[in-house]
């Protein structure tokens, strides 16, 4: 359990932007240390992806749970989250100490377009990920319909995001089954 904690602690330093990049690394390690079979790992990735929260964090909880029960799940989770929380906290202190608004403005000037690109790319990846199998064009149409209606609900009528998810779940059950 300690070695698993250390492994996720190491990974935690690499987890930029949600951590899709970590999945192959976790897969290698899981195979090497025989934490779980390949099939079980694919199931775990599926569950991690469908659950709320960052994929890599979810995956680490599952692997910890599978190998060492709830204690293992907590160890893996803390191991993965702690480094990025500490680095983010360090970033905070640096910005806090700088106390130069002009400098921060300049950093933000360059950073915000990149962040926008990151978010747009997340949209692309999610959309592509949900289009598998043969009925792709049909699914894409339903997808565009859902996005269109949800956009109107969100922007025009300022409805709560929970309703957006509820509506899209119902549409999914109705059209995508």
């Amino acid at each position, binding site marked *: 359990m300690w070695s698993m904690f250390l492994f996720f602690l190491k990974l935690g330093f690499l987890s930029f932007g949600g951590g899709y990049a970590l999945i192959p690394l976790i897969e290698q390690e899981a195979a090497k240390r025989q934490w779980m079979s390949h099939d079980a790992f694919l199931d775990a990735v599926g569950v991690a992806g469908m659950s709320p929260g960052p994929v890599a964090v979810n995956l680490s909880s599952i692997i910890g749970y599978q190998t060492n029960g709830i204690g293992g799940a907590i160890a893996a989770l803390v191991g993965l989250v702690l480094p990025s929380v500490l680095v983010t906290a360090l970033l905070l202190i640096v910005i806090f100490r700088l106390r130069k608004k002009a400098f921060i403005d300049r950093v933000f000037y360059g950073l915000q377009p990149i962040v926008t690109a990151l978010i747009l790319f997340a949209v692309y990846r999610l959309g592509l990920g949900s289009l598998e199998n043969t009925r792709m064009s049909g699914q894409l149409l339903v997808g565009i319909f859902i996005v269109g209606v949800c956009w109107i609900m969100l922007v025009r009528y300022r409805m709560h995001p929970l309703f957006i998810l509820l509506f*899209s779940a119902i549409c999914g059950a109705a059209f995508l089954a």
Partner: protein
Amino acid sequence: MKQDTAPTLLLLFWTFLKLSPISFGGGYAIFPALEREIVDKRQWMKSETLVDTLSLASAAPGGVGVNAALLVGYRLNGWQGAVAACCGSILPSFFIVIALFAFYSKIADAPKTEAVLAGITWGVITLILFSALRIGKKAIKDKTTLFLLLAALIGLFIGLSPVYGIAAGIAAGLIFTIFKKNVPEETTNASAVREDPSYMYFI
């Protein structure tokens, strides 16, 4: 700007606890709900401040949702606030993922389950698009920033790691702004910022 009364730790914890279950597909999807809750309903922060905080959260290492909780919690209530918000944002998804995995064999083959999740994905895509629009509106100030956005998109599509994009963005921001007399400020809150330059220190 600092609000008159800092929210209690419990309320901060509860706010993020409520938001966490909708953070499907990474943390970007909670941004719209976060804005409703923190800016519109509780009025803990100005919209501008929140957008700045969230773009910082997206650029920092780690899950975006966790970072957002950390930074918002810190701004509102210091280190204790950061810890409270962080715990609130992690706990629900932790239990949901464990429970789902435990029951996975029972629900895996149900086509309805898959269909519902596929539907939710498109809803989540809408929420994330909305977040991109909110941050993008503030980010794209001129041709330089538009160029940075497009360059970063191309980089991501050809498989470059986001880390390089973030580093390049910070470098570009520092270099390009030397040649500009003054960085174009957001028109909406330029005066507010000048009145209260201290707000940045509470990031």
